């Protein structure tokens, strides 16, 4: 079996475990390439169906074409969509673009707190998230089934052992489990798979006339495009094979301090 198929089969196995083990299961959908691959793998796992509701945490600072793309797929692929957000903070304007919060604080309220609110509201005890180990160093330490306590905190110093595809599926009431079916994929693998499966993505990933494209997409005030001529999947794969800049280099919130991202993640950020 070729290595992409190995990655794929492993992810399908994990999704099916999650679907079987959690009564209230949701799947985060950020509209980006990873969660689009995740969605594709769900259709593989469930043979064309997506029996898990998708949760989109909308910060209101998402690039408009992302929302269009989202709503189109919901219709075409017959998806159940739940949209979450932090109304209060938005109303008060306590956000980074308004100058009333740092980037990290903004991520904390608009994404992390909003996520907690949706999870609580829908009583999800399992959430599928498309993070990968190669994205950044704290994610490199993640488990496939990663418990969060009732405050959503991640006890990274004391993670459950994970061996032989036996995952943590027993946990205290009020806690929830993050399930990470893409953990073992790299950015390059994602693109190779997008190519092999012909998965539709938002056009922001492909270079425009100005010679710019996004490598990682978040909110527009904190995400910056890279210089690139790669205007299709093949060219992106070629570009990634040679690049030495990290994927999240265009994500400003990671850089506010040395351990900014670690702190966000310990507190429950995805």
């Amino acid at each position, binding site marked *: *079996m*070729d*290595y992409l198929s*190995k990655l794929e*089969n492993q992810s*399908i*196995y994990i999704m*099916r*475990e999650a*679907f*079987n083990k959690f009564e209230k299961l949701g799947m985060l959908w950020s509209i980006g390439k990873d969660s689009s691959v995740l969605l594709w793998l769900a*259709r*593989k*796992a*469930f*043979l*064309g*169906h997506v*029996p898990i509701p998708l949760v989109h945490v909308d910060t209101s600072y998402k690039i408009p074409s992302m929302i269009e793309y989202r709503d189109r797929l919901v219709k075409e692929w017959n998806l159940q969509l739940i949209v979450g957000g932090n109304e209060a903070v938005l109303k008060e304007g306590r956000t980074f673009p308004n100058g009333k919060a740092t980037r990290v604080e903004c991520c904390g309220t608009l994404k992390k707190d909003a996520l907690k609110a949706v999870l609580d509201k829908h009583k999800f005890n399992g959430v599928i998230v498309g993070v990968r*180990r*190669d994205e950044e*160093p*704290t994610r*490199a*330490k993640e*488990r496939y089934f990663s418990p969060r306590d009732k405050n959503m905190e991640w006890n*990274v*110093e004391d*993670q*459950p*052992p*994970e*061996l*032989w595809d*036996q995952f*943590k599926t*027993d*946990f*205290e009431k009020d806690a929830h489990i993050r399930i990470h079916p893409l953990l*073992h994929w*790299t950015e390059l693998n994602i693109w190779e798979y997008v190519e092999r*499966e012909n998965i539709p993505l938002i056009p922001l990933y492909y270079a425009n006339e100005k010679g710019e494209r996004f490598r990682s997409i978040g909110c527009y005030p904190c995400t910056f495009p890279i210089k690139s001529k790669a205007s299709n999947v093949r060219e992106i794969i070629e570009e990634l*094979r*040679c690049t*030495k*800049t*990290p994927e999240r280099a265009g994500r400003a919130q990671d850089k506010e301090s*040395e*351990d900014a991202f*670690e702190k966000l993640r310990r507190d429950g950020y995805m």
Partner: protein
Amino acid sequence: MQQTFSNPTEQLKIVIVGHVDHGKSTFVGRLFNDTGSLPEGKLEQLKLIAERRGVPFEWANLMDALQSERDQNITIDTTQIWFQTKKRQYVIIDAPGHKEFLKNMVTGAANAEAALLLIDANEGVQEQSRRHGYLLNLLGIKQIAVLVNKMDLPNYSQARFDEIEKEYRAFLQSVGVIPKLFIPISAYHGDNIATLSEKMLWYKGPTVLQTLDEEFRVSQPQENLPLRFPIQDVYRFDERRILAGRVEAGSIKVGDKLIFSPTNKTSTVKTIERWNAQQSDSAATGESIGVTLTEQIFVERGAMAALETSPPYELSRFKARLFWLGRNAFKKGKTYKLKLATQEVECEIDTVEKIIDSSTLETITRAGSEVFIGRNEVAELRIRTKRPVAFDAISEIVPTGRFVIVDGFDVSGGGVILDDNYPRRTSDSLHKSDNIFWSHGKVTAQQREGRNNHKGCVVWLTGLSGAGKSTIASELERELFNQGKHVYVLDGDNMRHGLNSDLGFSHKDRTENIRRVGEVAKLFADAGVVVVTAFISPYRSDRDLVRKITPEGRFVEVFVNAPVEVCEQRDPKGLYAKARAGEIKEFTGISAPYEAPEKAELEIHTDKLTVPEAVGRIVEYLKQQDEDLSYSI
């Protein structure tokens, strides 16, 4: 050494293990640096951070990403990081060396196909060097190279290197590991990692990088193994029932006749289901697929499909080698959850053969009578499960030859199943019970019998309708009760109202009816009760089955014999009349056979004896049986 790469065709996962501080994370940092795999600016960033904090620069900080790890210069949790050579893509799994984090080391190593084991040239072989060596073997990792690190400290001395190699090679050999080679390196200075060191001219190579590419192979699933397809879930997204799962061994194709453990039901593969993939009528090891069957049978998660010709073992007791990672010890007498493939079942320790310190390899003896396996210890033992489990020995099929134990909410231990002359299943599912080991509580049947002063047994009355079974049963019950014995009558009608309400009167249902009555009667007997049943039970094979599942000497078959003419004359419920009139089909003695017992413990001719006489015979027989009762509680 900036490189661009052609399309990688394979991926290999390597774990880095060894004693705390022997330089594992440093090695990985250096390997990345020396192969030009660091992201741009990363080295500068790490150097800057070290400077800002006023601490020496450490290569290990590339891997030790947590602030708590950097503060203490220690790896707490395992990390995975990717790099590529001309040959293939590598996943490097850095594992912690501190004993405290052994569960994280196991998590990292369990994912790997090969290992590099680091030993500090100054400190030499230490506790975790040995323990990790032992565990790698237990985890099934066969490709191992040993890196003797920090060679700069003993001035690149060949003598020191040889000394360590000799000692450690001997240890590995004693646990059954044959390392590919030993390489002297200095992780910190980059000696013999990507390029051959000039400070150790006595070492002719290969470098670590060459070793990775040339000595190690990507593991391929073993071919020609029997099919193992554990069911993960059953999907009903449309009108079809699709069995979802991953082929763990062998291959599966349309038309294969499958047998499912634990029900022993069989059916045939109708289709193999995938989405957006090339249509194919077969699936190989490792494929996550869906399967539909030609005959609809009841299958759920936890069932394991195999080819009829080569099913797994299905037993409630097996021998295993287990490592324990839990904070609380693994104790005899406590129940735990066992997970094997998709099966989950309650289990407990049956017997412990030996407990081993996996570093010194010494046998651990426990003071006191409590039996337990402590944290980080390894044991050879027998595990007993509540229900039979489908499994293979690890030497035969790996994915179905290993399991984990869950204590409370936590996966706390793992084990591999050792060979032990397990009985193979026969295709006759009804004889399955031979292989089921009884799960015992703390009170044995013997102790119960000792206290009751009589045996628990099944008095099975069989005979034609009207022969007098029910009359004898109720009289017998009263007589034994008056004598102070624990006795209970299992009544046919009562059983059919409750437990057996789903059954009719076809041959198949009658057999099932008797089988269930037999199972219930067996439980009563085990509980110390004299249980009396009064069923026609016309088929010899049905009665023999109950005899078979009841412990030796605890099944008393009583043939309540009266000629059919006598019975027809008595006809207390008017059934013979109806049968003669054709209103009841398949009536025993009239239109269906009665197979008389050939080896009944007692035969009672009710046309010749009175009811009290008949009861007296049975009471007398039971009394004799109780004479050898001399148990102590």
